[in-house]
């Protein structure tokens, strides 16, 4: 990643300006929580910052950022699952568990709830492609490179996702 040797701070700032919003949206679509989404994106940029001089990235910076956020989200979800499991064990054991902080709660309105349900019902690959396109704002070609798929497959999966959304939500349109 040669551009990082130019002027490290400026380059990271430019990358932040360019991709922060899209990466945040993509992370939120995976995590469903604003604070966590920002934290995940910040983690990735911090890592980029801290290792900026020795970092070796063999693909484009953009692809690196998206892939890093994706993996960071998966880690975050795994950690959350462990915490949830622990909480439910405590509850089953009769231990009083305090409510989560209000800031962590997600209050989804009916429409958003329906949408999220439909998205959750999509097959894994289809959902990932949809998220990268809709929230990560990547083009078909970029998604194909990111996931190691053909552009045709991405196109077919996007069509599948949108057809499913239309079919399930047409009564709201």
């Amino acid at each position, binding site marked *: 990643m040669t551009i990082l040797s130019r002027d490290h701070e400026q380059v990271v700032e430019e990358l*932040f300006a360019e991709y*922060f919003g899209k990466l945040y949206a993509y992370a939120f679509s995976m995590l469903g929580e604003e*604070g966590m989404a920002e934290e995940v994106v*910040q983690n990735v940029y911090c890592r980029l*910052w801290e290792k900026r001089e020795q970092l070796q990235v063999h693909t484009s910076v953009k692809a690196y950022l998206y892939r890093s956020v994706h993996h960071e989200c998966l880690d975050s979800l795994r950690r959350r699952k462990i915490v949830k499991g622990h909480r439910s064990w405590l509850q089953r054991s009769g231990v009083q568990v305090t409510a989560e902080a209000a800031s962590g709660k997600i209050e989804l*309105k009916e429409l*958003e709830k329906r949408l999220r349900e439909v998205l959750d019902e999509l097959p894994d690959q289809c959902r990932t492609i949809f998220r990268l396109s809709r929230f990560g704002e990547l083009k078909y070609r970029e998604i194909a490179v990111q996931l190691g798929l053909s552009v045709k497959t991405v196109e077919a999966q996007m069509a599948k996702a949108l057809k499913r959304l239309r079919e399930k939500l047409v009564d709201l349109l």
Partner: protein
Amino acid sequence: MDELLIKYLLGEADPDEIARVRDWIADSPENARRFEQFRGVWEMSRGVVPAAPDRGEAWERMRQRVDGGLGEGRTWRAEEKSEGSRARPWQVAAVLAGLLFVGGAVWVAQDTERPAPVTAAAKKTADASTKKIKNRQTADPVAASDTIQTLFAGDTGRTDTLADGSIVTLGKHSQIRFPGDMKREGRNLFLEGEAFFSVAPDPSHPFIVRTDNITVRVLGTSFTIRCGPKLTEVIVKTGFVQVLHDSDSVVLKEGRRYVVQQKKPRIVAEDRGHRAITRAIIDDLVWFRIVPNKDSLRWFGLDNSQFVVDGRKMSDSLHIEFRSKYIGPDGNGYFYGSPGELKVHGRGYFYEKKDLYRYPGNP
């Protein structure tokens, strides 16, 4: 055909495919309706994700984290809703009036009757054209940009086209600030005073207008905002919009209204049926911007350059496709009035709002 419609919608279609899709959509109201449904779910799906935190503030948080030695693996959280635009992004304080037309056009005013005075510095250069300034310390989110452009209006107001193709009409003694490079830094604007925006559609780059106490996020659709001292309401005409008020974030669909009265928000359904549609059309025809669809243009024997309303040339971007926008029960669009009652402008006949009100059965 659905695959092709989706490619077109996502900007992935090649020129031949674009032509095919456009022909297909124009072929029948059913086709247009099907495309609108795909467009609707696509726009609506964006609403699942809230607006990103202000980028400038997020960058500062990251710098503090790095400078403070909070490295990878340390616990860290954004201070949500602590200050600035994230803290109280949608406090509506009774100072906004608005309209939005097809493709997204919104009128935002801090006080429609008494426009907020611009700063002394702004007045000094009130009639100057666009001015570039360097400012990274001011409170508004646009200040995160390296180069801020400021557009001032003097005693008469002014109309300009922004770099993204959106048209802004500033009220007198009003100003907007926006990033010098909107493509790279986002379509974020900060407004003082009043302005009418005709927003160029670009689903991947939301158009966001902030004032001191309210933010409007355009998702590429049409809606009306009305704000007064006692009441603020957002009425969705077509598609979907995201409304944020205090900590509330709501995606509103067509025919719904978001009303804030005495600081209490509620969502109500618009009346259904002909009367509601009529009212929606009339709302769209506020001001002098009365726009026929392409069929009407053809019928009048006009082309776009000859299309004049109240002495003003209308552009392509202001054309409203009434027929597809307001589809009637039999699949046809709604049309109102008759040429005999209408004013003649140049070679064409055009409706005015009062003509529509005069029409029997209209509210």
